[in-house]
C-alpha cells in the first residue's frame, strides 16, 4: 500500500493543504521543511490519516469542533485506490463521491492488519529511536540475540526490559535471600503465628488460675465468719458495760418515788400541770389590763391637739375642678393666637383670586361647572388636532419620497439574458460530471491493469507477445494437465516404491552379508577325529588303572604304568577338556554354518529379486520418457516451454487470470473511450450555450463549465426576481398616495370647527376672545378655587370668637372660688388657682391625722373590755380545779402541785432508763436484760477487760482478712491478666495478612521471573533461527552505509554469549563499544533496515516506512550512501524521509536517479499571516505554519480562569513535554505569557 496524497483538511495550522507523495513509484520521497515549517505536524497528520485522530489531539484548534480533520489517497496493488477523509476515528470515503462511512476493516485491509502501535514500533524510525537504539547496542554489550530480536521487534530497549524484570524479581525473592519481600513477609507471618500460639490461653491454664481465685475467695469467706463472731461478742460486752450502771440507777429511782409519796397528798401530774397553768393565766390577765388603760389616756390627749381648716375643705371639689381646667385654659390661649394668623393668610388668598378674575370682593358672578368643563375639553381637543395634522403631513411626505426612490431603483436593475437554452444543456451535462470525475480513476485503473498484465505476461514468459497473441494461444486443457500430473505422480509413486523395494533389498543383502561374514570371521572348526582319539586314550588309561587296582596287581610295573597313566591321563584330561570346549564351540558353529548357508541362499534370492526390480525400473523409465515426449509436444503447440505439471497448472491458472485481466483491460479501455467522447460532446454543447448568453466560457473541464452555467442561470434568475419585486412595491405606493392627501385635508377642517367653539366658550367665562387655551385653563382653575377660599375665612372667624368666650368663663369661675379665703381673688387666674391648691392640701393632711387617732382609740376601748373578760375567766378556772381535786380551801395549792410534779419526774426518768435498757438488749424484754445483767455477774472493770481482749481479737481477724483480700486480688489479677492480654485471634489475623502479602509477592515474582526467563529463551531461539540472514543483510547495509569502511558483521563467542562484531576492511574486528558514535548509529540503522525488510516479507500488504531526521549525524558521504539504501528499500515499499536539512535534499537530487526520488517542500512559516484559514507558504499547494505547542499553551491559558501549573497545561492541551521548554520560553520572553514562581511552584497565565 502507498500513500499517494496526504490531505491536511484542518490539521494544526494547515487548512485545505495537500502533500503529493505519489512520486516516485519506487524509491525515496523526501519531505523537507525547515525549522518551524510544520514538519512534525505533517508527520503526525500522516499517522492520523492511517490510524485515526485522537479526540484529545491539540492539532484540531483550527477546526470549529476542535478535532483535526485529515484525509489521504491510498493505492494498493490488491485493493485499488481509496480516497477518504477522517475526523476522529471514523473515516469517510470520498473517491466514490457518496461520502459513505468506511467500514473499519477496509482501512485495516489497506494496512494489512498493522496496528498503530505496531506501525510506530516497526515502520516508523525517528531520530530519538536512532539514539536510544544506538545506546541499546552498548547496553546489550553487542549480544547478538538481543540485537537480532530487538531489530525485528522494532523500538524499545530489550536490555532495559530485562533489567527491569530482573531487578523486580530480585526485590521480590531469592532462593537464599533474607531481605526480599517474599521471605520477609513469610518470616513476619511465622513470627506472628508463634506469638499467637503463645498468646492462646490453654483451657487447663485458665482453669488453674480460676481455681486459685476460688480458693482465695473461700479463704476470705472463712476469715469473714471469724471476724463476724468476734464482733458479735465484743458488741455484747459493750452492751453489758452500758446496762450494769443503768440497772443500779433504776434501783435508786424506785426508792426516791416511795419517799415522795409518803410526804402528803399527791395528785396526778396532769392535774398539777393544769392547776399551775390556770394560776399563771390569772396573773397574766391582770397585768395586761393595766397596760391597755395607760394607752387610752395618751390617745385622748393627741386627738384634742389636732386643728382643721373647714372653709377650705368645703370648697375642695370646686378647687379640684379649677386645677384640672388649668391646662385647657392655657391651650385655648395658645390656639387663639394661631387661629388669628391663619385667618390673615386665608383672607390674603381670597383677595388674590378675586384680583386674578378681575372681581370685587362682593362680586358673585355665576359660572357653572359645565362651562368650565367645556373650556377644558376644547383645550385638550386642540392639542390632539394639532398632532393629527402633523402626522398626516409627515406620512404624505414619506410616501412621496418612497415613490421617488423606487423609480430610481427600477432604473438601476439590468434586464437579464435569456438562459433557456443554457438550462437545458446544463441539465443534460450534469450527470456527465461524475463520469468525467471517474475518468481519472479509470485511467489510473487501466494503467495499473496494463502494468499488471505486462508483469504477469513477463512472469509467464510471454513478455514479447501482444495481448491478441496471448489470447490466441492454444493452451492444453486443464483436464490434460491434471491427467499428466496424475500420470507423473503415479510414475513417481511407482519409482518411489521401486526405490523403496531396492533399498529394502540392499539393506537386507547387507545385513545377510554381514551375518555371513561374522560367521566366517569366527575361529575355525576343530577336528572331530582328534577329539575322538583323545577321548579313547583317556578312557583306556582309566580302564588300565582301574583293572590294576581291582586285581591287586598294582606292582612296580603297574605303579610305573600308573604313574605313566597318571601323567598320560593328565595330558589327556587337558586334551579332552580342550576338545570338549571345541566340541561346544563346534556345536555353535554348526548352527552358524547352517545359518550361513541359508544366508547365502537368501542372498541369491535377493540378487535375483534385485535384477527383476532393475528390469521393472527400465520399463518404467521408458514409459516415463514416452510420456514426457508427449507432454513436451503438448506445450510446443502453445509455444511455451514445458515444465513439470504442477508448475504448468499454476502457469495455466495464472494464464487464465491474465486472460481475465486482458479482457477487463479491454472492457475498461472501451468504456474509457466511450466516456471520454460523451464528456467531450457535452463539453462542447455547454460551451456554446454559455456563449449564447453573452458570457465567455471558463477554461477547464465539464465540471467547471457546468458550475459556470449554474452561476449564470442563478444570476439571471436573481435579476428577474429583483425587477419584479421593485415594480410591485412601486405600484403599491402609488395607490396609497390619494388617501394620504385626503387625510391632511380632513385634519385642516377639524381645526377650523374648533376655533368657532372656542370663542363661544371664552365668552361664557367672560374671558377676552384672544385668550389661548393655557391661559383659559388657568382661569378655570381660579374659578374653581374661589368658593373654597371664602369658606375658609368664615370658618376661622367663628373659631376665634368661641375661644375668647371660653377664656372669660374660666376667669370668672376662679374669682368665685377664691372669694373670702384668698387675699386677692382678682389676680391673674392661674396664680389664684395655684394658691387655692396649696391651701386645700394642708387642710386635707390635718383631717387624715385626726381620723387615724380616733380609730386607735376605738381599738384600745375594745382591748380593755377583753382584758376584763379574761381576768374573770381565770379566776373561775382556779376555783373549778380546787373543787375537782377536793382540796379544802385551806390547803396550799402550790405545795400539792410541787410534790405531784416531783413524783411524775422520778417516774419519767425511771421509764426512760428502762427504755435504754431495753434498747441495749436489742430486742430482749426488760426482764431478760435485767436477768442477763444479774447472770453475767461482772463488775464494770471486769467488763472493760473482757471488751479489750475482744477488740484485740477483732483486730487480728481484720488483719488476716485484709491479707486474704490482697491474695484474692492477686489471683483475680492473674486471671484477668490472662484474659485481658491481646487476643491471639488479632495476632493470627495479622499473620494471615502477612501470609497474603507473601503470596501476592510470590505470584508477582513468579510472573516476573518467568517473563524474564521466557524473554531470554525467545531472544536466544530467535537469534538462532534468524541470525544468519539478518546478520548477512544488516552487514550488507552497514557496509554500504559506511561506504565500505566495514566489510561485514560477524558473530563470535565470548564466554557464554554470542556477540556482534563489525569487521573493518583491513580485517580488524570491533565490538559495538569500540565503534564511533556515528558508526554505531549506522550499525543500528542497518539492523533496523534488515528487521524492516524481514517483517515486510511477512506482511500481506506492505505499508509505507517513515524515517524522521535519522541522518542528522551522518556526514555528507554517508548521508548519500544512506539515501541510496533508503531508496533501495523503497523498491519493496513506499519510503518517506522527513527532514529539516536542505542539504539532504540536494544530496539526494545529486545521488539518486530522477525516477527514484520525489521531493515535497514545506515552506517556512509566515508569522505575520498566521490567521487561521489563510492560505500560506507551502510552495506547491497550500499551508502555513505556527508553533503548535505555543498555540496550544495559549489556547489552554485563554480558557483557564486562574494561573495553571506546567502539568495542568500539558494535560489540558495534550502537549508533548519535549516541546514545552522551547514553547514556554518564547512565550514568556515575548510577554504573551507571564510566569509566577519558580520550578515546581511556577504558575502561568496570559500576559496583559
Amino acid at each position: 500500500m502507498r500513500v499517494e496524497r496526504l490531505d491536511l483538511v484542518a490539521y494544526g495550522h494547515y487548512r485545505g493543504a495537500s502533500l503529493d507523495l505519489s512520486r516516485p513509484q519506487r524509491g525515496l520521497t523526501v519531505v523537507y521543511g525547515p525549522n518551524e515549517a510544520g514538519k512534525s505536524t505533517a508527520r503526525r497528520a500522516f499517522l492520523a490519516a492511517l490510524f485515526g485522530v485522537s479526540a484529545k489531539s491539540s492539532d484540531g484548534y483550527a477546526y470549529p469542533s476542535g478535532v483535526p480533520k485529515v484525509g489521504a489517497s491510498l493505492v494498493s496493488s490488491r485493493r485499488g485506490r481509496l480516497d477518504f477523509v477522517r475526523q476522529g476515528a471514523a473515516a469517510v470515503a470520498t473517491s466514490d463521491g457518496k461520502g459513505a462511512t468506511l467500514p473499519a476493516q477496509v482501512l485495516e485491509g489497506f494496512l494489512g492488519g498493522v496496528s498503530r502501535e505496531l506501525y510506530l514500533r516497526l515502520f516508523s524510525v525517528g531520530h530519538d529511536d536512532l539514539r536510544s537504539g544506538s545506546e541499546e547496542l552498548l547496553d546489550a554489550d553487542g549480544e547478538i540475540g538481543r540485537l537480532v530480536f530487538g531489530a525485528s521487534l522494532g523500538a524499545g530497549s530489550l536490555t532495559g526490559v530485562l533489567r527491569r524484570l530482573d531487578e523486580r524479581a530480585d526485590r521480590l525473592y531469592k532462593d537464599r535471600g533474607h531481605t526480599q519481600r517474599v521471605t520477609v513477609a513469610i518470616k513476619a507471618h511465622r513470627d506472628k503465628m508463634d506469638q499467637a500460639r503463645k498468646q492462646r490461653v490453654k483451657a487447663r491454664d485458665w482453669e488453674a488460675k480460676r481455681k486459685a481465685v476460688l480458693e482465695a475467695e473461700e479463704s476470705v469467706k472463712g476469715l469473714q465468719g471469724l471476724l463476724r463472731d468476734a464482733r458479735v461478742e465484743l458488741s455484747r460486752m459493750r452492751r453489758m458495760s452500758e446496762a450494769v450502771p443503768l440497772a443500779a440507777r433504776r434501783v435508786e429511782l424506785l426508792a426516791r418515788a416511795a419517799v415522795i409519796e409518803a410526804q402528803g397528798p399527791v395528785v396526778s401530774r396532769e392535774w398539777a400541770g393544769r392547776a399551775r397553768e390556770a394560776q399563771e393565766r390569772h396573773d397574766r390577765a391582770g397585768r395586761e389590763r393595766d397596760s391597755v388603760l395607760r394607752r387610752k389616756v395618751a390617745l385622748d390627749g393627741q386627738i384634742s391637739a389636732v386643728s382643721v381648716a373647714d372653709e377650705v375643705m368645703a370648697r375642695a371639689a370646686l378647687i379640684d375642678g379649677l386645677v384640672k381646667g388649668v391646662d385647657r385654659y392655657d391651650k385655648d390661649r395658645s390656639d387663639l393666637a394661631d387661629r388669628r394668623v391663619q385667618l390673615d393668610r386665608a383672607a390674603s388668598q381670597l383677595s388674590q383670586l378675586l384680583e386674578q378674575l378681575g372681581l370685587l370682593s362682593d362680586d358673585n358672578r355665576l359660572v357653572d361647572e359645565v362651562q368650565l368643563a367645556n373650556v377644558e375639553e376644547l383645550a385638550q381637543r386642540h392639542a390632539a388636532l394639532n398632532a393629527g395634522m402633523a402626522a398626516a403631513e409627515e406620512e404624505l411626505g414619506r410616501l412621496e419620497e418612497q415613490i421617488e426612490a423606487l423609480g430610481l431603483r427600477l432604473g438601476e436593475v439590468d434586464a437579464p439574458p435569456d438562459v433557456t437554452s443554457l438550462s437545458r444543456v446544463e441539465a443534460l451535462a450534469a450527470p456527465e460530471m461524475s463520469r468525467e470525475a471517474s475518468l481519472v480513476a479509470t485511467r489510473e485503473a487501466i494503467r495499473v491493469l496494463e502494468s499488471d498484465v505486462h508483469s504477469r505476461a513477463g512472469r509467464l514468459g510471454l513478455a514479447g507477445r501482444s495481448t491478441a497473441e496471448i489470447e490466441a494461444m492454444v493452451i492444453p486443457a486443464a483436464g490434460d494437465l491434471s491427467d499428466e500430473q496424475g500420470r507423473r505422480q503415479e510414475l513417481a509413486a511407482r519409482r518411489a516404491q521401486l526405490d523403496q523395494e531396492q533399498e529394502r533389498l540392499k539393506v537386507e543383502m547387507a545385513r545377510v552379508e554381514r551375518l555371513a561374514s561374522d560367521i566366517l570371521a569366527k575361529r575355525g572348526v576343530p577336528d572331530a577325529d582328534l577329539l575322538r582319539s583323545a577321548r579313547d586314550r583317556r578312557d583306556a588309561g582309566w580302564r588300565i588303572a582301574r583293572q590294576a587296582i581291582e586285581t591287586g596287581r598294582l606292582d612296580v610295573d603297574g605303579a610305573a604304568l600308573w604313574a605313566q597313566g597318571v601323567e598320560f591321563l593328565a595330558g589327556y584330561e587337558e586334551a579332552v577338556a580342550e576338545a570338549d570346549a571345541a566340541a561346544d564351540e563346534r556345536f555353535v558353529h554348526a548352527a552358524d554354518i547352517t545359518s550361513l548357508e541359508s544366508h547365502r541362499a537368501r542372498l541369491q534370492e535377493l540378487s535375483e529379486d534385485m535384477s527383476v526390480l532393475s528390469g521393472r525400473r527400465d520399463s518404467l523409465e521408458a514409459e516415463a520418457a514416452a510420456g514426457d515426449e508427449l507432454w513436451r509436444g503438448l506445450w510446443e503447440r502453445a509455444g511455451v516451454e514445458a515444465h513439470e505439471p504442477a508448475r504448468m497448472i499454476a502457469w495455466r491458472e495464472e494464464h487464465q487470470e491474465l486472460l481475465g485481466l486482458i479482457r477487463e483491460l479491454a472492457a475498461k479501455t472501451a468504456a474509457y473511450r466511450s466516456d471520454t467522447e460523451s464528456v467531450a460532446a457535452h463539453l462542447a454543447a455547454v460551451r456554446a450555450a454559455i456563449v449564447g448568453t453573452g458570457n465567455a466560457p471558463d477554461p477547464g473541464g465539464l465540471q467547471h463549465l457546468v458550475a459556470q452555467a449554474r452561476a449564470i442561470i442563478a444570476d439571471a434568475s436573481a435579476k428577474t426576481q429583483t425587477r419584479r419585486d421593485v415594480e410591485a412595491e412601486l405600484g403599491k405606493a402609488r395607490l396609497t398616495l390619494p388617501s394620504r392627501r385626503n387625510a391632511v385635508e380632513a385634519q385642516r377642517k377639524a381645526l377650523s370647527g374648533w376655533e368657532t367653539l372656542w370663542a363661544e366658550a371664552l365668552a361664557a367665562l367672560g374671558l377676552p376672545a384672544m385668550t389661548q387655551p393655557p391661559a383659559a385653563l388657568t382661569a378655570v382653575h381660579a374659578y374653581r378655587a374661589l368658593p373654597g377660599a371664602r369658606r375658609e375665612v368664615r370658618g376661622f372667624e367663628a373659631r376665634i370668637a368661641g375661644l375668647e368666650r371660653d377664656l372669660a368663663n374660666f376667669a370668672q369661675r376662679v374669682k368665685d372660688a377664691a372669694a373670702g379665703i384668698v387675699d386677692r381673688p382678682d389676680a391673674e387666674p392661674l396664680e389664684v388657682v395655684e394658691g387655692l391648691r396649696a391651701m386645700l392640701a394642708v387642710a386635707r393632711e390635718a383631717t387624715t391625722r385626726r381620723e387615724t387617732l380616733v380609730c386607735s382609740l376605738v381599738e384600745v376601748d375594745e382591748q380593755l373590755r377583753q382584758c376584763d373578760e379574761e381576768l374573770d375567766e381565770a379566776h373561775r378556772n382556779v376555783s373549778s380545779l380546787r373543787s375537782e381535786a377536793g382540796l379544802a380551801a385551806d390547803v396550799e395549792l402550790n405545795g400539792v402541785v410541787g410534790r405531784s410534779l416531783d413524783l411524775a419526774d422520778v417516774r419519767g426518768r425511771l421509764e426512760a432508763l428502762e427504755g435504754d435498757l431495753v434498747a441495749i438488749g436489742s430486742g430482749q424484754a426488760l426482764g431478760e436484760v435485767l436477768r442477763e445483767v444479774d447472770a453475767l455477774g461482772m463488775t464494770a472493770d471486769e467488763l472493760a477487760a473482757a471488751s479489750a481482749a475482744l477488740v484485740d481479737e477483732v483486730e487480728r481477724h481484720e488483719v488476716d482478712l485484709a491479707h486474704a483480700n490482697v491474695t484474692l486480688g492477686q489471683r483475680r489479677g492473674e486471671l484477668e491478666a490472662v484474659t485481658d492480654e491481646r487476643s491471639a485471634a488479632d495476632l493470627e489475623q495479622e499473620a494471615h495478612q502477612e501470609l497474603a502479602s507473601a503470596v501476592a509477592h510470590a505470584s508477582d515474582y513468579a510472573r516476573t521471573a518467568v517473563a524474564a526467563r521466557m524473554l531470554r529463551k525467545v531472544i536466544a531461539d530467535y537469534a538462532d533461527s534468524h541470525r544468519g540472514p539478518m546478520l548477512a543483510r544488516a552487514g550488507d547495509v552497514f557496509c554500504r552505509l559506511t561506504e565500505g569502511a566495514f566489510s561485514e558483521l560477524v558473530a563470535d563467542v565470548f564466554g557464554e554469549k554470542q556477540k556482534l562484531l563489525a569487521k573493518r576492511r583491513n580485517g580488524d574486528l570491533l565490538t559495538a563499544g569500540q565503534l564511533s558514535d556515528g558508526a554505531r548509529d549506522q550499525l543500528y540503522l542497518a539492523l533496523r533496515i534488515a528487521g524492516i525488510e524481514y517483517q515486510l516479507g511477512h506482511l500481506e500488504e506492505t505499508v509505507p516506512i517513515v524515517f524522521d531526521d535519522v541522518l542528522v549525524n551522518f556526514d555528507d558521504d554517508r548521508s548519500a550512501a544512506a539515501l541510496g539504501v533508503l531508496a533501495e528499500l523503497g523498491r519493496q515499499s513506499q519510503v518517506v524521509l522527513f527532514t529539516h536539512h536542505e542539504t539532504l535534499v540536494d544530496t539526494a537530487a545529486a545521488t539518486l536517479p530522477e525516477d527514484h526520488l520525489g521531493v515535497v517542500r514545506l515552506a517556512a512559516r509566515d508569522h505575520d499571516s498566521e490567521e487561521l484559514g489563510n492560505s500560506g507558504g507551502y510552495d506547491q499547494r497550500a499551508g502555513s505554519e505556527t508553533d503548535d505547542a505555543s498555540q496550544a499553551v495559549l489556547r489552554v491559558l485563554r480558557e483557564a480562569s486562574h494561573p495553571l501549573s506546567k502539568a495542568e497545561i500539558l494535560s489540558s492541551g495534550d502537549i508533548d513535554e519535549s516541546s514545552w521548554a522551547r514553547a514556554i520560553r518564547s512565550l514568556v520572553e515575548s510577554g504573551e505569557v507571564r510566569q509566577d514562581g519558580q520550578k515546581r511552584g511556577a504558575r502561568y497565565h496570559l500576559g496583559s
Partner: protein
Amino acid sequence: MGTLKFVHCADIHLDSPMRGLARYDGAPVEQLRGATRRAFERLVGLAIDEGVAFVVIAGDLYDGDRDDYHTAMFLQRQLRALQEAGIAVAVVYGNHDAANEITKRLALPANTYAFPSDLPATHTLQDVGVALHGRSYPTRAVSEDLSARYPQPVPGLLNVGVLHTSVDGRPGHDPYAPCTIDGLANRGYQYWALGHVHKRESYQRHGVRIVFPGNLQGRDVGESGSKGASLVEYDDSGIHSVEHRDLHAVRWDRVEVHLEEPATPDDALEAVLSRLQALQADHEAELHAVRVVLAAGPALSRNWLRDADRFEAQLRADAAAGSDRVWLERIELRPTAVRSGEVPDEALSALREALDAVRSGTSQQLRAEITGLLGRLRSRFGPDAGQVAQLGGEILVEDNLSALLDEVESLLVAELDGGA
C-alpha cells in the same frame, strides 16, 4: 400462645481470621480485627432486640483446633447476655467443634443446652412450646446419617431438628452426616435448623422448612455477599415466616469492571472508585473487603501492566481516601488481549509460540525449569504451602501453569509492544 420468634444460626467459626487480605498503606487494619466476634455480638443484639424465645446454633461455633480460652470467655459473655435477657440457647457441636478443646472444657451458662454426642436427644422448652432434637458430632468426621436416629416428634409442640450436615453433598464442604432433603422432610418435624454449608439455602417440602442460614461472617472472597442468620416466627399452627438478617461485620465482594477501548488507567480508576462507592451505598458493612477484577482491552491492559504497581497503589490510596471502610483484597487485571497469529508481528509471534510450546509441553526442559521454580517458591511457605492457591496464589500451582503463562504473555507484550 401468640406469635413467638427464634434465631437460627450456624458456622460461627469464632476467631477465625479473614484470609487473603494483604497489608498495604492506608488499609483499615482496625476494622478487620475480631470480625467473627462482632458478627456474633450482632447476633446476640438481634436476639435481644427482637425479643426471641430462643437461639439455635447448628454447629461449628469454634474454628477447628484453635483452642484459645479467650474465645471461650467471649462466648460465655455473649451467652450470659442472652441469659440475662431470658433467652434460651441450644447448640449442636459440628465437625470443627469436635476437634476443639474448649468444647470439652467450657462450662456453659444455665440458659445454654448442648446436645450430647453419643445419642440424639430432645430438649424441650415447654414454656415457649418447642421441642428441639439434635446430636453433636462425637468426632471430626461423621460419615453416618445422624438424622436417621433422631427422636420422634413431640405432639403439641413445635418440633425443630438441629443438625450439622452437608445433606447430599455440597462442593467445598466435607461430606459429613449425609442425608437427603426428602428424608429430613419426612421426620415429622416442622423446621430443620441445619449448619455446615456456608452458603444460604432454604427448602420447603410438605410444609416443612429446611434451612441453611449460611455462615455468620464470610472469611474470604469465596464467601462473598451478605452473611447472617435466619429469624423465624412461629405459633401453635407452625412456622409463619423465615427471614434472613444481615449480621456480617466484614462484607466480601467481587467487583468486576469492564472497560471498553479506548480507556486510560485514569478511566479505570474512576470506574472502580465509582463502583466501590455504589457498593458501600447499597450494602451496609463495617468493612468491605473487595476483589477488583478489571477486564480491559489491549491498550489499557498494556498501559496498566507497564506500571501496575503504581496504578494499584493509586487505586488503593484513592479507595482509602474515599472511605475508611474499604480493603482492596486484590486487583486482578484480565486482559482481553489480541491473541497470537492475529497481529502480523514476527517477533511477538515468536514470543507467543515459545509460550505455547511451554503450555503444550513441547518445550519440556523449560517447562520443568518453571515448575521447579514454582516448587521452590511454594516450599518456602513450609506448612502453609497448601494454602497458597486459596490465598490468591493460583498461578503458583503447577496445575495453573497455563494461567501463569497467560499473565507472563500479557506482561511481556505490555513491555515490548509499547510502540515508539
